[in-house]
Every structure is written in structure tokens, then in C-alpha cells.
């Protein structure tokens, strides 16, 4: 017999009640009552996740005894979170160092030690707020009063808000990808933290803005939203920076709703499309917070921060929890940075915002049975928000389709070993030597600002880019000339049947995913390939070459 009958309660009240129950059987009974009764998806998730948590606890490993070599770094991260005894941690550290010695695992354990020891020192050493007039007496003090500066501190933040961009009356794919990812992140979040600080589950809120988007809004639920907020107006048919920003901010900050009883969202996620990226920058600017653009992953975890700009105390490390980690490629694709948006003393930086590269996350299968709430947002939109008039719009003819060809010839930055223009010419010639081939480029060639001769300029553009942010190809034959093989490039071509690399550097990363690696300069090798293919007489070409 269940002590708790969920059907007697509103979902909002159930969070804390469910968290109090430690008996799996009792929860199973409550789940059954809900299924037979109101069968609310949110309630079932709540109970199921509590059951999962309890069951996971049963299988708990004892950190003092655990065989760390059996655990993943993520398992260790979860394990150390609940350990408060520094001796146990030190012992774990020794075992890890003696065992697999994984850098990630060691960092996790060390951070936990630091968190515990750090928190001891903090006692009695509260930071004190110094007003700017005292801190910098020589300055006149308008900065905090400047437009858009909001010096909120210690406010409430909840939920993950997802901007679902539309185009021609449909969600763009990345909108659905983000909803699927947001669902997963917030399910894990509610499992890990048991909901918000009061034990209530936090939600995925989808935002849809446009003309006649009410029907579309319903679909966001099937992809993972708990709640959908939409605003429709015929003037919003196409994206406009000003009204879209104002509407988004009003929805999540100013809109008076019983369910939105918090200051601002905890997290906001946008697509890294041209318009989505702009909107992300403006919304986060208006909400006086930060964001990372073009993320290639997202996860929520603790973060040990020693940066005094965030801790307020040089030398100390402070643990921040529920932090959205935002890894992204930057430095022209040479490095990955993980960006965090973190409060500082006496100033909140929430929501933590991100934009996501389209195609990063899997497109989820819609669950038509999912339940959620759709709400219309309606405020007056002043005419002067529409200060940009869209007089015309045309769909661009699809650029160059690199998919579906037998052969792809791809050029990388190796073309600047000699003249980049000549490099492109060689690539085009090689392409033309095949029956069904196209020319592709790495991102590096497109962003390098080489000065190309006018006759080859037409070949250099994003429409020929292969890789993470370009096209993904899988031809029978892939020839990579002067391509170093960055991981972003790899994802665009590593399903090709046969990969031939031409590179002067035998240590280039592309060697690891090539079938043939011709160690030589493309300016010498490619002309021979062209001649051989054109004449069909390789032997003569080879003989000539080796005679040189």
C-alpha cells in the first residue's frame, strides 16, 4: 500500500514529497496509482527518477574499497562528490596513481580534496561588499547605471530555456536536436540534484517566435519540452533582431506567470545559425549575462574555480555546482576551450547561455505521447521595434553538393607550400581527371584569407567546406592533398571507402585515418596523378618521375 497517492497532489507539490521517500516499493506503488489515475508524464518521470536514484545508491561502491581501475572517470567524479573525508580521498588518489593514472580522474579527486579543505578556510572570512564609490573614488560612477547593466545578486534561477528557431514555417533541425539534448540534460540534472534547491524538478522550456507558430509549438513537446511559450504576430514572419530579443527577454524575465516564479532562467540554449547566434548574443547581453557560441557539446557538472574574478579571493578555490560546461572549438579550429559562465561575488551571471553548432546532437525521435503545456505570450509590440524593413527574400539555390560523387578531391592548407592559386588549379585539374568527382576544401583554406587569383576565386567558399561545420561526404575515393586532418575535418570524410592522403609531414593526424599516405609535396605528386589519369599510362609517368 502506498503512503503517497500522487493523484491527490499537483506536480509542483510532489517534488519534495517524492524525494523524502526512501523505499523503492512504496515508490513503485505510487507510480502504479499515477498510471491508473491521472497518468501525468512529469509525475511519472519524477517518481521513476527517484527510483533510479535509490537503486543506484544500492549498488553503491564504497570509495574506500572501490577498485578504481574498474570505474570510468565519470564514475569516479560521481563517487568523490559524496566523500567528505580527506583521508579517504587521499587514499583514492594513491590507488589511482598506482593504477591507471588517468589525468581526468586525478583532477576529479584533487578538486574534491581542494573543495573540502578550501571550505574549512573560508569560515569567518566572509567577503564584504564595497560600493564602487569607495573602491574607485577617482571615477565618476555611471557604469553600474549604464543601460543593460543589472547588478542582481543572489536571485533564483531555474529551468533550461531553448530557442526553437523556425524557417519557412518549420523548426530547423537544430531546434529539435537541442530539445532532445535539453531533455537529456535536465533529466540527468533532476536525477543528480533532485531538482532545484527546494527539490522541485526543473523543466525544459521551449520558446517559439514567429507568424502562426501556435500549431508548431505543440510539436516541441514531443521533442522533449515540458512547457512551450510562443508569440505569434504577422510582423514576426521573418527574424528581426529587436522584437525577437525583446520578446524572448520579456518571456523569461518579465512575464508574470505562476509557474515562472523565478528571476531569470538558469540556462538558455540557442542554435548557432546566423540569426540564432545573433539572438543569443543580444538576449544574454540584455539579461546581463554571458554565453559561449558554437558549442560542440554541453554538460552540467561541478567546477572548481580558482580565478579571483569569480571567487573574490586570490589563492582560494571555490566549488560552483550546476555549472553548464560549454566546450567549443576556437582559435580557428586549432584548440578546444571549455567556457563557463559563473557568478561573481555580489553579481549574478545567469542565465548561463550557449549556442550549439547544428548537427552536434542527435535528432531525437518525437514522442507523440509526451505531455506538456503550451502557453501563448502576448504583449504589444511597438512599431519602432520594426525599424528594419525586409523588402525581399529569396531562397538561395543550393550551393555545391559534394555528396553523392564517386571521388572527392580535398585541398588543405598545404596549398600554401607554394602558390595557393596554383594549388587550387591542381585540385580542379585532378577533379576533372575523374569521371564523377568534386572539389572540397578544409575550413582552414576558406578562413586563411589567401589572395587567390581571380580565376580560382569561384572555387573558394564555404559551399565547398568539408567537415563538422561543412558537408559530410562518403565517396568511394577521397583524396586529401595537403590536409593535416583536424578532428573537425575527419568527421566530414572518415566514412569514405578509400582515403589517400598526400602530405609532406608523415606525423600529420590524417595518417591515422588514411589507407594510403603519400609522403610528398602535393605540388609534385598531384601533377603526376593528373598526367597518369589523363593518359592512362602510369608506367611512363612513373618512370619519368623517378628518372628526375
Amino acid at each position: 500500500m502506498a503512503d503517497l497517492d500522487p493523484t491527490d497532489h499537483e506536480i509542483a507539490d510532489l517534488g519534495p514529497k517524492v524525494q523524502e521517500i526512501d523505499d523503492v516499493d512504496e515508490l513503485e506503488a505510487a507510480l502504479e496509482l499515477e498510471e491508473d489515475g491521472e497518468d501525468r508524464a512529469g509525475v511519472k518521470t519524477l517518481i521513476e527518477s527517484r527510483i533510479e536514484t535509490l537503486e543506484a545508491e544500492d549498488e553503491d561502491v564504497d570509495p574506500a574499497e572501490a577498485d578504481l581501475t574498474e570505474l570510468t572517470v565519470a564514475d569516479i567524479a560521481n563517487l568523490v562528490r559524496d566523500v567528505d573525508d580527506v583521508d579517504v580521498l587521499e587514499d583514492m588518489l594513491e590507488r589511482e596513481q598506482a593504477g591507471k593514472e588517468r589525468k581526468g580522474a586525478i583532477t576529479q579527486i584533487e578538486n574534491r580534496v581542494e573543495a573540502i579543505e578550501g571550505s574549512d578556510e573560508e569560515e569567518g572570512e566572509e567577503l564584504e561588499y564595497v560600493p564602487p564609490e569607495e573602491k574607485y573614488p577617482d571615477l565618476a560612477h555611471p557604469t553600474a547605471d549604464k543601460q543593460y547593466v543589472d547588478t542582481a545578486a543572489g536571485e533564483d534561477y531555474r529551468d533550461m530555456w531553448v530557442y526553437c528557431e523556425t524557417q519557412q514555417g518549420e523548426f530547423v533541425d537544430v531546434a529539435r536536436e537541442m530539445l532532445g539534448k535539453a531533455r537529456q540534460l535536465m533529466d540527468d540534472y533532476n536525477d543528480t540534484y533532485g531538482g532545484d534547491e527546494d527539490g522541485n524538478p526543473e523543466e525544459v522550456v521551449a520558446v517559439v517566435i514567429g507568424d502562426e507558430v501556435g500549431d508548431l509549438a505543440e510539436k516541441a513537446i514531443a521533442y522533449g519540452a515540458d512547457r512551450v511559450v510562443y508569440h505569434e504576430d504577422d510582423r514576426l514572419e521573418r527574424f528581426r533582431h529587436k522584437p525577437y530579443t525583446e520578446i524572448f527577454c520579456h518571456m523569461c524575465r518579465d512575464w508574470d506567470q505562476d509557474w515562472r516564479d523565478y528571476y531569470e532562467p538558469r540556462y538558455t540554449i540557442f542554435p548557432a545559425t546566423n540569426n540564432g547566434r545573433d539572438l543569443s548574443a543580444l538576449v544574454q547581453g540584455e539579461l546581463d549575462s554571458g554565453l559561449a557560441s558554437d558549442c560542440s557539446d554541453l554538460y552540467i557538472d561541478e567546477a572548481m574555480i580558482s580565478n579571483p574574478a569569480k571567487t573574490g579571493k586570490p589563492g582560494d578555490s571555490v566549488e560552483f555546482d550546476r555549472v553548464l560546461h560549454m566546450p567549443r572549438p576556437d582559435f580557428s579550429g586549432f584548440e578546444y576551450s571549455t567556457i563557463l559562465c559563473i557568478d561573481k561575488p555580489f553579481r549574478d551571471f545567469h542565465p548561463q547561455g550557449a549556442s550549439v553548432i547544428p548537427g552536434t546532437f542527435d535528432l531525437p525521435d518525437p514522442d507523440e505521447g509526451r505531455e506538456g503545456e503550451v502557453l501563448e505570450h502576448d504583449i504589444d509590440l511597438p512599431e519602432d521595434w520594426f525599424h528594419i524593413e525586409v523588402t525581399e527574400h529569396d531562397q538561395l539555390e543550393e550551393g555545391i553538393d559534394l555528396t553523392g560523387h564517386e571521388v572527392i578531391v580535398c585541398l588543405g592548407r598545404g596549398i600554401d607550400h607554394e602558390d595557393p592559386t596554383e594549388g587550387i588549379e591542381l585540385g580542379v585539374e585532378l577533379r576533372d581527371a575523374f569521371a564523377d568527382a568534386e572539389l572540397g576544401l578544409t575550413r582552414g583554406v576558406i578562413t586563411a584569407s589567401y589572395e587567390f587569383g581571380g580565376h580560382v576565386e569561384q572555387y573558394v567558399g564555404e559551399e565547398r567546406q568539408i567537415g563538422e561545420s561543412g558537408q559530410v561526404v562518403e565517396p568511394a575515393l577521397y583524396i586529401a592533398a595537403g590536409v593535416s586532418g583536424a578532428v573537425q575535418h575527419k568527421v566530414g570524410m572518415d566514412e569514405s571507402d578509400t582515403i589517400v592522403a598526400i602530405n609532406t609531414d608523415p606525423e600529420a593526424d590524417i595518417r591515422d585515418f588514411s589507407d594510403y599516405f603519400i609522403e610528398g609535396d602535393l605540388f609534385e605528386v598531384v601533377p603526376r596523378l593528373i598526367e597518369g589519369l589523363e593518359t592512362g599510362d602510369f608506367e611512363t609517368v612513373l618512370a619519368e618521375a623517378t628518372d628526375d
Partner: protein
Amino acid sequence: MHMLVLTKGVPDFREGKVSFDEDGHLERGKTPTVMNPNDKIALRAALQTKVKCGGSVSLMSMGPPGYKEILQEGMADVYAEDLYLLSDREMGAADTWATAMTIATGIEQFDAEPDIIFAGFKTADGETGHTGPQTNWCIDINEELTDRPLITHVIAMEVDEEEQVVRAKRLVEGDVSEIETIEADLPAFIVTDPEFEANYRKAEHRLRYKDCREETRERAENLDLEEDVTVWNHEALNLDPDFIGLDGSPTIVSGVDPIPKGPSERDATMIDPDDEAGMEQVFETMAEYAAGD
């Protein structure tokens, strides 16, 4: 017409210029700093407007004193009349929010609001694409106007001085690509797309373009970096250090990793181009797809 172009210095990522340490991290000290390539595109849009409508072009950056040379490069390479640098230790390590706050305050120092502010799309190092839009959002210079129209991803533009409007084409990407034609009143804030193309269809424009380039090259050569670049620090801008630089930045970089190397998935046959047998093997693989006669 007063035009302002925003720019930033970035590591020169071209092959042969860029330098990495053993762990694959960028070595800033060994890599030369150059003007962000996308900002040159913004300068081209400003130059096109200057050639057709007249007026002056200012160039502004935020960064260390060495960025004066970046400003000079922009002046010599494209076109600029006067140069501004916002420079102060307190401004260092700023993210896009703190950068936008600082630059917007710099722009507020002008006696009159620029008619058009130009920015390039992403920088080659941070690669956010946020600073242009956020700067426009922050500028608080004109009581009549809370924000200037923001026109991003501009691939072509014309200014109609008589009507005080700008007409532009912008690139919209999504599941399909679209071109929008828009019209907005001046003053406006324009972010050029990497695909931007300047156009000089009339002969008189082409002549004036040539004159402008010559005139600015001469000016850049004779530039006295100490005298001719206006430098403003946080005190000159009256900006509270808590709101700029690292201290004013909502975001921090928690870790920088070289792009991870994927696991070795294929066992490459190494071929010396001078080895006939090896090359023959590759040729045979390729010949199957060769164009027939």
C-alpha cells in the same frame, strides 16, 4: 558621413606563421599578431561607402599598446582616416560582454554619433560572432534612440544619403540558405559577412577608390604611432574596473585543450612518391574512377 570600423588583433593562423608548443597549445609569443581578417571586410564596406558618399572613416580597437600597429595595418591595407585604441590593463582578458561594454563606452566619447558603425563577423581567435551585436546593444549615446538598427551578415550594401537609409542584402542560414533585402534608417550598425563583396560599378567610383587608397597608404607610412593614435584608458572612459576586462566578464575559460587526436582507425600504407611499386598501387586504386576518353 562619419563611419566607424571596429577591429581586433589576432594571431596569424596562416600555415608557417602560427606556432604551437609540444602539447599542441598555441604559442602566442611566437605567433605574429595581425588584423582580424574579417575586420578587413568591414573596412572594405566602409571604404565603399566613403568612395560613394564621401565622409570619414575612423578605426577603433581594444587591446594592448602593440595594437597600434594593427590599426596602422588596417589604415595602410584598406582605408582609415583616424585611429582609436582603448587600452588598459584593466580591460584585459575581457569576454564579449565586457568587450562590448568597453567599446560601446569608447563610441560614446565621440561628439556626434557615427552614421554607420561597421564590425566584422567572428574573430579568428575567439570566434564568437557576439561582439558586434552586443556592442550595438550597449551603446547609449542618443536619447532619442535606444538602439540603432542592427544589420548582420551583410553581403552587399548601398547607402542612400538623401533619404538617410541603408539598403543591404543579408545572408540567412538555416536548413536552407536565404538572402534578405532590407532597408533601415541611419544611423545603423552593420556586421559584414565573410561573403561581403564591395562593388564599384561606376568609373568615377573606381577612380575615387584608387585616390583614397593612395592617400591612406601615404598617411599610414607617415603615421606617428605615439601622436596619431588616440588612446583611451578606463579612467578616460570613466569605466569602473569591476565591469570591464576579466572582472566584468560573465564567462571564463576553464580549460584549453588541443583538438583531441582521433583514435587510429586505418592502417595507412606509407608511400614514397619516388617508389614506383607503391605509387602504382595508388594509381590502380584511382584509375577505376578516371574519366574515360
